[in-house]
């Protein structure tokens, strides 16, 4: 996509809320989708560029949510500062996780990161005096203000998440076009070859992991502010967060700039509608449908939506091209 198209897309995204009820159901779904698109973009730095299938990003996400919320509850510190603190902790956690997992490949890396996030979930469930345990935490609401990152209209959150998505995407683009991006791709394509030409593969992977972990933690704060309530399973859960983020990027198109957005716009509404339509039918039916969809996606479109969209676009532009040439002759 060119700069101009991207600019138009952002303008379009800014205008959408004007057509929707400011506190309605649809804008809430879009807000959630934007948040997950941002999470997907942060994951993309590790999963897409470095080619490491992390299934442990919930660790950073939850860390961010808990850090800012605990600072707010106990010390009245603004979530903006809490978000920065969470970001720092997320970066440190990502660094610590890198040490044992850096050399792992494929399945082993996925399993190691998955276990890492589970450690956090168990701790959050057990250390009740700090985290409130399985009961969870409520974010205290004072008054709607930007300084406290609290609003009474979903529309404001929509813009917040849009800004977050654009910001994370810009970081992604900067990394892709910069030195780190080239090195990451070298590491992904051939770690041994990269090592030979002088890339410190371990360091490059750690850099990517720290940036990704830190961003994910900051987005955890935004989630806490949006939802006002969370418990260990919703922010540290493997299915709820880690696997969902990875799924969104893979469905949308791994390693691409617009993949996370495409994926989030498909998966999040799908989940929501499945929930609404099937939740009161029978316990488990909506989850069952979700699981079946997950399997269907893997079996039908393993390369992701972005690939599908690319093929479609190629076919359309191909037709336009051929009709142009026909017109000329």
């Amino acid at each position, binding site marked *: 996509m060119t700069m101009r198209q991207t600019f138009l897309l952002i303008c379009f995204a800014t205008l959408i809320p004007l057509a929707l009820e400011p506190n309605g159901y649809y804008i809430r779904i879009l807000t959630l989708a934007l948040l997950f698109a941002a999470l997907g973009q942060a994951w993309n730095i590790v999963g897409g560029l470095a080619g490491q299938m992390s299934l442990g990003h919930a660790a950073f996400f939850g860390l961010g949510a808990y850090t800012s919320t605990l600072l707010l509850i106990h010390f009245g510190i603004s979530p903006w500062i809490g978000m920065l603190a969470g970001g720092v902790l997320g970066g440190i956690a990502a660094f610590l996780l890198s040490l044992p997992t850096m050399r*792992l490949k494929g399945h082993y890396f996925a399993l190691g990161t998955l276990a890492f996030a589970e450690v956090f979930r*168990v701790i959050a469930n057990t250390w009740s005096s700090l985290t409130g345990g399985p009961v969870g935490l409520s974010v205290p609401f004072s008054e709607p203000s930007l300084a406290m990152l609290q609003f009474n209209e979903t529309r404001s959150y929509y813009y917040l998440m849009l800004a977050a998505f654009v910001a994370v995407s810009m970081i992604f683009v900067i990394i892709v076009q910069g030195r780190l991006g080239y090195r990451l791709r070298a590491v992904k394509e051939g770690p041994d070859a990269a090592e030979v030409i002088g890339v410190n593969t371990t360091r490059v992977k750690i850099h990517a992991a720290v940036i990704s972990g830190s961003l994910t933690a900051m987005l955890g704060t935004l989630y806490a502010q949006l939802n006002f309530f969370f418990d260990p399973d919703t922010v540290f859960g493997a299915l709820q967060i880690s696997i969902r983020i990875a799924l969104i990027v893979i469905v949308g198109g791994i390693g691409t700039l617009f993949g996370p957005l495409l994926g989030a716009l498909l998966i999040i509404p799908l989940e929501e509608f499945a929930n609404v339509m099937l939740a009161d039918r029978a*316990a488990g039916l909506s989850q069952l449908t979700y699981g*079946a969809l997950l399997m269907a996606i*893997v079996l039908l479109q393993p390369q992701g939506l972005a690939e599908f969209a690319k093929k479609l676009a190629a076919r359309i532009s191909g037709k336009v091209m051929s009709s142009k040439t026909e017109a000329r002759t």
Partner: protein
Amino acid sequence: MTSLVQAIIDGLMVGGVYAVISIGLTLVFGVLGIVNFAQAEFLMLGMYIAYFAWAALGLDPLAGAFLAFGIVFALGYGLQRTIIQRVLKAPAVSQVFLTVGLLIVMENGALLAFGSQIRSVTTAYQTKSLQIGPFFVSLPYLAAFLMSIASGVSLWWVLNRSWLGMAIRATAIDPMAGRLIGINIDRVMAIAFGLGVGLTAFGGAVVLPYLSVFPTAGSQFVVLMFTVAVLGGLGSVAGAVVGGLAVGVITSVSALMFPIQLQNLVLFLVFIAILALRPDGLMGRA
């Protein structure tokens, strides 16, 4: 001291069961090359089959275990042929999502079919135990242990002494070469998957005398199975036996020192440490 020895005895008893359910996981990985996140759901299925066999036919869960093995073997065979086979060459992450999808479907399918109530069986030997000096061996633990060891030995015999076993091992080493010497790879893989999930279901049935079954009963075994399999080296059957016994003892001894909620935490830390230090398992590649 007495309590430590007692904990080690208990640990070895449950560890034998852990070994059998993890052999299933490691066999599937060794032969098909996929990590089956839904493996523990087959354990839950085995528990339900044994439960209903007990409730409807009055069959003891230890006998129901064979029924569970047979039914789940057939189910696994079919699943492999229709679904799993399609992702064998796909990237690791597609395989993860497929099996996670299967996990969600099975767990919620069980919830829809059987409801959320917790079910358990009553048997004559349930609360009995053997006394050896100052130590006790719980009878249901012992029965589950012996059944597990028997099924492990049977699997070992099949893998090492039968034509099918040789075909399975050949497929695990090099599917292409296996095909060239005339092995029907697709069928062998389906049998291996059936055997793997069947064994896990068998393990689920034999623990029913001392555990209850409910739709999410499998989830408590997920970490455990992966720790055992990775400890022994993913793909190594002998490793899973050693890993199972080790994990049984670790959990049982750590229960003496830490509160019950932190038991999983100890497992996770062992798991991550092993991945970091010995990614091929304690015994290396087997």
